[in-house]
């Protein structure tokens, strides 16, 4: 699981760059599986899949493109996905990311979370 300390976060977005590079072989925060939004003086907020016990995104999907696998990780079958975005609306944590009509959900990179490797203040770190 990803742990976030908003007080340490500098909003540099390096984690999102790393995520997009690992997953898409391109640097593109818009295709990252996590987002960090801040507006000083409010503290920044991390939005990323929390691997819910009863994932509402999966329930909301009308074409069964989403499923929950081992370790509660959400898997996306892009062949089935109809880009309806009902999962985006269903997620209470705003963790389903979208870019150019496509959805992106964090799969934890097998629990490795390479995004944490580039965090210079350890604002995001992996638990366990």
């Amino acid at each position, binding site marked *: 699981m990803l742990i976030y300390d908003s007080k340490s976060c500098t909003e540099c977005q390096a984690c999102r760059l790393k995520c997009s590079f690992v997953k898409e072989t391109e*640097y593109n925060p818009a295709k990252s599986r996590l987002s960090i939004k801040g507006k000083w003086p409010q503290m920044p907020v991390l939005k990323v899949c929390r691997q819910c016990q009863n994932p509402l995104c999966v329930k909301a999907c009308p074409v069964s493109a989403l499923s929950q696998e081992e370790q509660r990780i959400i898997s996306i079958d892009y062949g089935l996905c109809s880009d309806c975005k009902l999962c985006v609306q269903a997620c209470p944590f705003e963790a389903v990311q979208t870019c150019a009509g496509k959805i992106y959900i964090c799969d934890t990179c097998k629990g490795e979370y390479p995004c944490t490797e580039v965090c210079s203040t350890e604002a995001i770190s992996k638990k366990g």
Partner: protein
Amino acid sequence: MFEAYNRNLLRINLTDKSFQVEEIPAEVMDKFIGGMGFGVYYLTREVDPAIDALDMGNKLIFATGPLTGTGAPMFAQTALVTKSPLTNGIINCYCGGNLAQKLKSTGYDLVIIEGACSQLSYVLVTPDTVKFIPCPELQGKGVREAEEYISAQEGEDCGTAAIGLAGENLVRFASIISSTRVFGRGGTGAVMGSKNLKGVAFKGTIGVKVHNPRVFALKVDEAFAVFKIATDNPYSLLGVFSRYGTGGGMSLINERYALATRNHTQAHFATADKIDTTAYHKLANSRRIACFGCPIHCGQLHSFQGKDGFFTRGPEYETMYSLGSDCCNDDPLVLARAHNLCEEYGMDTLSAGCTIAFAMECYERGFLSSEDIGFSLDFGNGEALLKALELMARRQGIGDLLAEGTRIMAEKIGRDSAHFAMNSKGMEFAAWMPQRMSGIALTFATSNRGACHKRGPIGQELMGELPMESTEGKAKIVAGIQDKVNALFTLVSCRFADFELPIEMFISLLNAATGMNKDVTDFLDIGERIWNLERLFNLAAGLSSESDMLPARCFEPIEVDGELKSLNREEFEAMVQEYYQVRGWDQQGVPSSVTRKRLGLELPWK
């Protein structure tokens, strides 16, 4: 074909609300790389050096580089090139934050803005189109409000930059602000104001693909490792910056008698500790903010509580000098408010503070009276400092004169005020003292931007790697730094990156990202080519070797820990001549035909 580029530029014409996309020739990428290189290449080809900077024939060029938007750390800057209303020469200016990545995500590497809007407007750039949106309701509004308005209209995922009242009022050193970061120097905000352009917004989702992902990722990891070691060390410069921001070095600079104070008549500010970063950490709720992808996070955000509470970024070290020591202001709250005014009105804190310090001296000498000013403007008067900034941005009363900067002020005030109008080529001095550091003297004198500190041997002279006063060998050293930094600004690198990264690492990142095959010599040649092109533009704009002279105060003795020290005028002039020789310029500072040929410079103007 080179990778990591969009390979396109966007040309926006504000007059007829049109736009067109043009391919960037591979030869331009090869000879100028990007960022500052692109900006200088296109501006010198397209803008007549002789025009007034506030004429609608001037252009604003926002440019990114091949490493913009990649995972390589410390390449978040946007380069902005235009003709400066402060110096009448070319200006290249940089802003961190996330603007560069947002610009590149629209599918362009640079945006050239031409003409002028018929009414106050902002432009929105997306991968598909450009929208010209009138915004008369933003007239006179602060930068923060303008950016919030644009974000509310166009979405939070926009990258925005805007001007405030100072830009609208054509204050000669008005800046352009993007969230917590600034295109500070040279009056780019006034150029934007002259175009009736309140703001720009970039919104896109296009990513960056590099030529060799495997090698590039390895080089990125290496760069992160270098910066990790640096920031883990609390005594390294980047270690200090990451903890305290750029203001963290203030006490050391003061101890070394290099903190310009009281309009550059003193090198030491007795109460400097009242306005350094640690003072802010006691007074405010503070936190660190980083530019896009940057592990140094040198930005400081402060929130002041209480009835008159406010929040602000910074102040940076240079502002602690200009609105602090140079005006003898040691009140941290006044400094924070003054800084906040500059951010809201969109004014360069350096020029604004240095100009007020000049006015304070004029007042104390009787060159400006209380009647001229409307109040007492003595050194250390915080209330007067804030009032002067207000009037400056509004161009009201004495503010109309202050808004012109020190060079024009001295021309108007006359007597011998030019003697202590601390500018070079019209640009006010950055925090450093030519009296103390001969390399800085040469840097301020010869920089194409004017008295700019970005390309000088500051660290080497301050920390004793180079003798501070001796002029020996400085010509070659300064020319070398100027070329190197220009080359780094093509990528577009943060100025602090080469404090730790060796030049080979920048070139490895560039080659792995683009597929280029550059070596150190090629890279530095590019920096030199850009430097000479800027110089030729400036000469055609009317600048000359006389513009490479410093105000007389720089040659007067200054007290350093009980001793009097000074910069010798003859030695300085000999150093300038040596510099011309190193550069391959004639005795009047004109690049020779041999030098132009060697660098492959063709001039579009006489």
